């Protein structure tokens, strides 16, 4: 049963408040608010009691699925468990109750934490300096490319107008390049799922501003040619951009900085256990090598005579990229995680993430085709092409997994794998959970052969069945409208 809207439950006269009589002189609202801003029709807000509202949202919360309720192998998203100690830390009044406009002397602890977090992230990524401002991964990409553009311009090389990215890249890479005004050049993957070096060689030129690379890639494959690529791009005067989406595979084992990358964005909400998706805002710090330090957003967090301060003195800064200093609460959570894990703990995280993914692949690759041969890193990509022969598509497999109690993997991405199913278990799942997922996937493979209609009709156990995606895209119905009241044509 689907949950009715609050509007549908409304009944005239119900309310959840009781105000005392007004004890100041009342004035007509028209005296207080300019006429153009006054509404001419009633707002038609729902009329409900407090328990009506609480029950509505509690019912909705029960329909939700989250990492706290089950396994969430959404490839490329690193949906790992978010430890509750992060919440304990960030809810200390000293973090929770401060204001960004407080005098620096009264928020030394917060500045100290940001300063230390910058150092820790620099160490993990092999970078020289870091900004914590960007609000998410794609925002980090934008920040990174704006710095790269500023760098080239400062050297009289503003003519560089091309950014190269592989055909396996996240959609945000081309989108970012285009947003900054660059022309995107796509380099193909070879039959091993690595960048085709010969093609890259033919694409790199004095027009190349940067190569954007995710390593390991969205196929979950580490490109061991990365040093050759760095050399090729640097020799042509371009820079190397590292998309940190898959940093969870290499922490404490390999560093983007040592692979020749000049800019790195890090997703705290993926790798460093801050809430993800609807659970909270993201955070996408960006690290740079020394040559790009002058271009970092301001303010930086500086330290002088044992005092921390907001440093606005940056001659070539690209400016501010986020109000105040970034999503501060996320910085506290990530800092908590890093401190709690320590360097041994973080490299163990990566080893376990890689082990889990390889375990799943090796237990599923007899019934499902592999996009590219393993071994893989933190994730792997299966293809539903075998199941398709019996009329079952990858989307059906994904929907059927919901009936088995699991969040589906990422589907139809990366684009270079037909009927892709992209699975990333992360390190926070035990073998029992992984085995239960394997059982479900194997059972679905059997169903696809024997009773395909069971799979194509899924999900069967949810409060709402299969949604009509075409209608949802073509005729989105995003707003409740009252039936009898005329639209307040104020536009």
């Amino acid at each position, binding site marked *: 049963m689907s949950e009715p809207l609050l509007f549908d439950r409304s009944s005239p006269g119900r309310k959840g408040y009781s105000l005392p009589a007004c004890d100041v002189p009342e004035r007509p609202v028209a005296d207080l608010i300019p006429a153009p801003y006054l509404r001419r029709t009633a707002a038609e807000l729902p009329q409900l009691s407090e328990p009506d509202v609480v029950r509505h949202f509690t019912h909705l919360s029960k329909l939700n699925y989250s990492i706290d309720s089950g396994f969430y192998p959404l490839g490329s998203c690193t949906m790992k468990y978010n430890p509750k100690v992060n919440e304990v830390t960030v809810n200390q009044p000293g973090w929770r109750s401060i204001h960004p406009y407080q005098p620096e002397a009264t928020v030394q602890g917060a500045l100290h934490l940001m300063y230390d977090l910058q150092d820790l992230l620099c160490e993990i990524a092999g970078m020289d300096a870091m900004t914590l401002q960007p609000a998410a991964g794609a925002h980090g990409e934008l920040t990174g490319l704006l710095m790269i553009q500023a760098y080239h311009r400062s050297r009289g090389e503003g003519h560089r107008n091309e950014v190269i990215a592989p055909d396996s890249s996240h959609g945000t890479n081309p989108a970012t390049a285009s947003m900054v005004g660059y022309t995107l050049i796509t380099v193909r993957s070879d039959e091993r799922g690595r960048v085709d070096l010969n093609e890259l060689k033919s694409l790199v030129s004095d027009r190349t501003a940067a190569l954007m690379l995710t390593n390991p890639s969205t196929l979950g494959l580490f490109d061991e040619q990365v040093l050759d690529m760095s050399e090729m791009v640097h020799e042509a005067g371009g820079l190397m951009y590292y998309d940190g989406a898959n940093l969870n595979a290499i922490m404490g084992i390999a560093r983007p900085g040592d692979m020749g990358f000049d800019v790195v964005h890090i997703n705290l909400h993926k790798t460093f256990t801050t809430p993800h998706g609807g659970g909270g805002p993201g955070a996408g710090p960006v690290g740079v090598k020394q040559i790009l330090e002058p271009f970092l957003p301001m303010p930086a967090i500086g330290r002088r005579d044992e005092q921390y301060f907001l440093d606005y003195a940056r001659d070539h800064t690209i400016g501010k990229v986020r109000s105040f200093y970034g999503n501060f609460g996320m910085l506290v959570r990530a800092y908590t995680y890093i401190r709690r894990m320590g360097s041994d703990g973080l490299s163990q995280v990566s080893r376990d993430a890689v082990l889990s993914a390889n375990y799943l692949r090796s237990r599923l690759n007899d019934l499902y085709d592999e996009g590219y041969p393993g071994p893989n890193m933190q994730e792997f990509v299966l293809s539903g*092409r075998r199941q398709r022969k019996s009329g079952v*598509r990858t*989307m059906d497999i994904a929907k059927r997994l919901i009936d088995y109690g699991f969040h589906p993997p990422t*589907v139809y991405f990366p684009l270079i794998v*037909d009927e892709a199913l992209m699975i990333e278990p992360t390190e926070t799942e035990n073998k029992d959970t992984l085995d239960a997922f394997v059982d479900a996937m194997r059972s679905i493979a059997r169903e696809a052969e024997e009773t395909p209609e069971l799979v194509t009709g899924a999900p069967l156990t949810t409060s709402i069945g299969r949604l009509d*995606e*075409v209608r949802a*895209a*073509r005729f989105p119905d995003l707003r409740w409208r009252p039936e009898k009241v005329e639209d307040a044509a104020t536009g």
Partner: protein
Amino acid sequence: MAGDFPDDLRYTESDEWVRVEGGEAVSGISAFASEQLGDVVYLQLPEVGKRYGRTEVFGEIESVKAVSDLFCPLSGEVIAVNEELDATPGLVNEEPYGRGWIARIRLENPAEAESLLEAAAYAQNTTERH
């Protein structure tokens, strides 16, 4: 399934088809492409009156799975587009070679069509991609 490629059409490796009619050509996307894309929900059609080079991006097609570029199959000026697709983009899935046509092009060089794939060669090409 995807093996439906009429013999009277020519095909590109990027999955467009063309039907040459004198100095003009009608184009769309192949049954293979529409099957790969899945249900089409939106098309950004080429600009009527604009000249496009062969393989130049001249539109976009969005399905429930992904957004892809549409490439101009032969050089020339777009003289008409299928406006029916604005309201019913699903025609691309239902009748890719008929009511799901995308653009009509006045060809700059009709001989260019000779370089496109014939049905058998295109069928072979799609098999190799599987």
